[in-house]
């Protein structure tokens, strides 16, 4: 270890020199010497004060960095534009020359780096050779297959890229400058607005401004002191976005596009390569709903992302209108993630943050202990009514399914909502949904993103180098592959289309099955939340709300299981199972409801297991007929029936 060997530090009249003190403070001494210095500091006031002076100077220097130097340093004059083009050019120049030889070279280096005894090395080299061949084969096949990603993958990448940007900044604020163009053929008009958006991710607030005659003008939906009124073009766009399940305050974002696209029934999607000005490579996702589109709805949308980093830069929305389709075109002019610390205070002046201290990646001396001042005055216990209300709020935010968010009681009776979610947007959405109970003393909320949880872990322990492991699929198929292929070939499809359909089919089946199980699990959690006595003690209204939640989930289970059955039957199904004598399911009272919920969960889990075996990769092919037995179809039907019965309970 390259730590200094300062064995004779005590030579200077018994006291450590300045040099040694600094090394000690910076953790650069070897353990033994560090121990000696520590012992000396415990005993010697003079030296302790000297050390404190060094520390104090460091503290002042750091404060100076943050308060003076950082604000003084102007942002990069070109705002980092141009890097993208340069990198793209470099990529093009470097090309994929001898990609395979690189790989072979790498593997060669890899294995020769392992110091193995002679004969195993031969074996390893042989194995390496075979793996290399397999990978080359897979690679070649891949290179010949699809060059372009699917819509979902594009959106996944875009969302992930955004998270990475945000998590790399302390107290992140996503700044976006957009040009919004609106074309209305009916009135032969074209409007143009320059819009700026500041998205304070941690505090779940957004600020917008438009470019007016007098320069930047902040706008606000509520108007008045918060800002000028929203111009009509934007107001109409907001309305459109809201009606299309998109977030009106974050119009050009992967999340908004995804939300709209997921809300569609049948749709056609296409991803193509394109180029923007300056030679920047881009990918365009075009989504066209196939169901009839009413006036005021989006007839077609396009999202353009930079190929290099998946960042969305353009979006076009074609809206059905009486006198001819209108078009909204949003183009990103600038984007940056800045820290709230360095943001000009005028942006969020007048708007106060939600009453939450920021939970960014700032290392803090005490671990963040939830969003309440640590000293709560009186002991407050959460009532069951409050609990049901929180459950409803979580349900409306869609946070009660499969995500790691849960609501439980602490020993003191406080209702604690904890969870870890994937993205900052999700976190903001959940916190927003919980607003009505945010200030309730009997409720404690701790929602973190995965990134924050990881950062806290690393802050507590020294970071260890972690290796990224990718999932490498060399072989194996899904069990249902041959049947599915036959099915689609019979329908007259060929080649790549067949592969694509097989993939989509599997994805749909897995998704329906999973969602059914998640809803069933949510029901089970709800049913088990209160004891029979507690349930009886609930007011009729509260009990009604609790039941309402269960019913909604039951309907979802019915819906998803039905959809699953309808997907699978044409391809795999035998004749529908005979309507044998079935025990009529009675759900008359609370006790039998709880039992029914339990049954439903078991059924859904069993169904899901079968679906999973059929549609996920494994190295041993299983016969689908062995999986989708008559009992399986029977089970699906029973699941639907039971779910519908529960959904009708009063």
């Amino acid at each position, binding site marked *: 270890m*390259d730590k200094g060997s300062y064995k004779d530090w005590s030579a200077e009249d018994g006291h450590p020199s*300045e*040099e040694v003190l*600094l090394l000690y*403070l*910076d*953790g*650069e001494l070897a353990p033994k010497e560090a121990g000696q210095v520590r012992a000396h500091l415990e005993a010697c006031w003079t030296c302790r*004060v000297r050390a404190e002076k060094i*520390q104090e*100077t460091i*503290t002042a*220097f*750091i*404060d*100076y*960095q*943050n*308060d*003076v130097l*950082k*604000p003084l*340093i*102007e942002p*990069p*004059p070109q705002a*980092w534009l141009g*890097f*993208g083009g*340069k*990198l*793209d050019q*470099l*990529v093009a120049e*470097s090309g994929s020359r001898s990609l395979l030889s690189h*790989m072979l*070279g*790498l593997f060669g280096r*890899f294995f020769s780096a392992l110091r193995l005894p002679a004969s195993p090395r031969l074996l390893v080299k042989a194995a390496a050779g075979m793996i290399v061949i397999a990978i080359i084969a897979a*690679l070649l096949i891949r290179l010949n297959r699809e060059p372009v990603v699917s819509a979902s993958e594009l959106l996944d990448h875009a969302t992930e*890229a955004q998270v*990475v940007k945000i*998590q*790399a900044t302390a107290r992140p604020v996503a700044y976006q400058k957009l040009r919004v163009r609106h074309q209305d053929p009916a009135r032969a008009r074209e409007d143009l607005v320059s819009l700026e958006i500041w998205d304070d991710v941690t505090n779940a607030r957004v600020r917008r401004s438009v470019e007016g005659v007098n320069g930047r003008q902040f706008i606000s939906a509520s108007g008045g002191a918060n800002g000028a009124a929203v111009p009509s073009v934007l107001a109409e766009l907001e309305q459109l976005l809201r009606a299309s399940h998109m977030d009106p305050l974050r119009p050009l974002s992967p999340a908004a596009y995804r939300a709209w696209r997921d809300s569609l029934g049948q749709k056609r999607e296409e991803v193509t390569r394109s180029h923007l000005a300056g030679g920047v490579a881009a990918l365009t996702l075009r989504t066209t709903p196939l169901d009839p589109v009413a006036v005021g709805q989006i007839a077609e949308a396009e999202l353009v992302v930079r190929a*290099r*980093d*998946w960042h969305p830069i353009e979006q076009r929305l074609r809206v059905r209108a009486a006198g001819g389709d209108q078009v909204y075109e949003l183009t990103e002019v600038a984007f940056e993630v800045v820290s709230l*610390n360095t943001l000009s205070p005028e942006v969020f002046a007048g708007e106060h943050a939600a009453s939450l201290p920021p939970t960014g*990646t*700032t*290392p803090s001396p005490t671990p963040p202990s939830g969003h309440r001042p640590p000293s709560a005055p009186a002991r407050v216990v959460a009532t069951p009514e409050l609990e049901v209300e929180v459950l409803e709020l979580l349900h409306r935010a869609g946070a009660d399914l499969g995500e790691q968010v849960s609501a439980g009681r602490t020993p003191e009776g406080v209702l604690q909502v904890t969870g870890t979610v994937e993205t900052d947007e999700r976190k903001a959405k959940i916190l927003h949904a919980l607003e009505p109970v945010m200030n309730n003393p009997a409720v404690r909320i701790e929602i973190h993103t995965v990134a924050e949880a*990881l950062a806290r872990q690393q802050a507590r322990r020294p*970071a260890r*180098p*972690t*290796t*990224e*492991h*990718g999932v*490498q699929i060399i072989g194996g198929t899904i069990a249902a592959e041959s049947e599915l292929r036959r099915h689609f070939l019979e329908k007259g499809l060929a080649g790549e289309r067949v592969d694509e359909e097989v993939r989509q089919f599997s994805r749909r089946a897995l998704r329906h099955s999973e969602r059914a199980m998640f809803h069933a699990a949510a029901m089970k959690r709800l049913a088990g939340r209160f004891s029979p006595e507690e349930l009886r003690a609930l007011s009729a209204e509260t009990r009604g709300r609790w039941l309402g939640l269960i019913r909604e989930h039951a309907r979802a289970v019915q819906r998803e299981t039905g959809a699953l059955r309808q997907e699978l039957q044409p391809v795999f199904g035998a004749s529908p199972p005979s309507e044998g004598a079935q025990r009529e399911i009675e759900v008359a009272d609370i006790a039998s409801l709880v039992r029914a919920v339990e049954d439903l969960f078991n059924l859904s889990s069993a169904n899901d297991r079968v679906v999973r075996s059929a549609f996920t990769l494994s190295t041993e092919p299983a016969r689908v007929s062995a999986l989708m037995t008559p009992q399986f179809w029977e089970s699906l039907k029973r699941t639907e029936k039971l779910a519908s019965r529960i959904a009708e309970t009063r």
Partner: protein
Amino acid sequence: MDGFRGGIESSGAEAELRLDADLLALIKQGTVKLEHKVTQIFEQLRGPVYHYLVAVFGDAAEAEDVAQEAFLQLYRSLHGGQAIGNVRCWVFRAAHNLAINRRKHQQFLAPLDDHSWEEIRQSLPDSALNPEQRVLQMERFERLHARLGRLSLQERQCLQLRVEGFRYREIAEILEISTPTVGEFLRRGIKKLMEENHG
């Protein structure tokens, strides 16, 4: 007694920045795209690299240019098959070397006038200090600012890199000097910044 371990808020995503043979193999297979990874790293590190360059060498436009070039070099090296363990260190070193080669001798810290100090005082985030304490702090800053101007280039470099959270060994790698020399520069730098009392 914490040394520099507090420091400027830095990103917690350091696990991302290990480009070892495993990840390189994935990149070669096409599972991970190299330019995507480099862009990710660029967006994560460009801020700190730029800050370091301006704080030490002074010219903002140069700093931006040099920073970009450093990341382009990163791409070239990775594409050529080099495995890089400590990416942060590598990038800072590349940037540093580029800057040294291009460096225009500049005295970065011009003394600030009263107006600038007033602006700074006004723009300070809300802190726990009362007005009196604030005044004292501002005076402290003015003294620091003046003293920083008297640091040598190497002392300045070492301090800024230490602020960035690099260990002595890493700073030695970046500046291509020995580890004890790093310690020496830091000690001298801190000494020059220290308030003279009756100590």
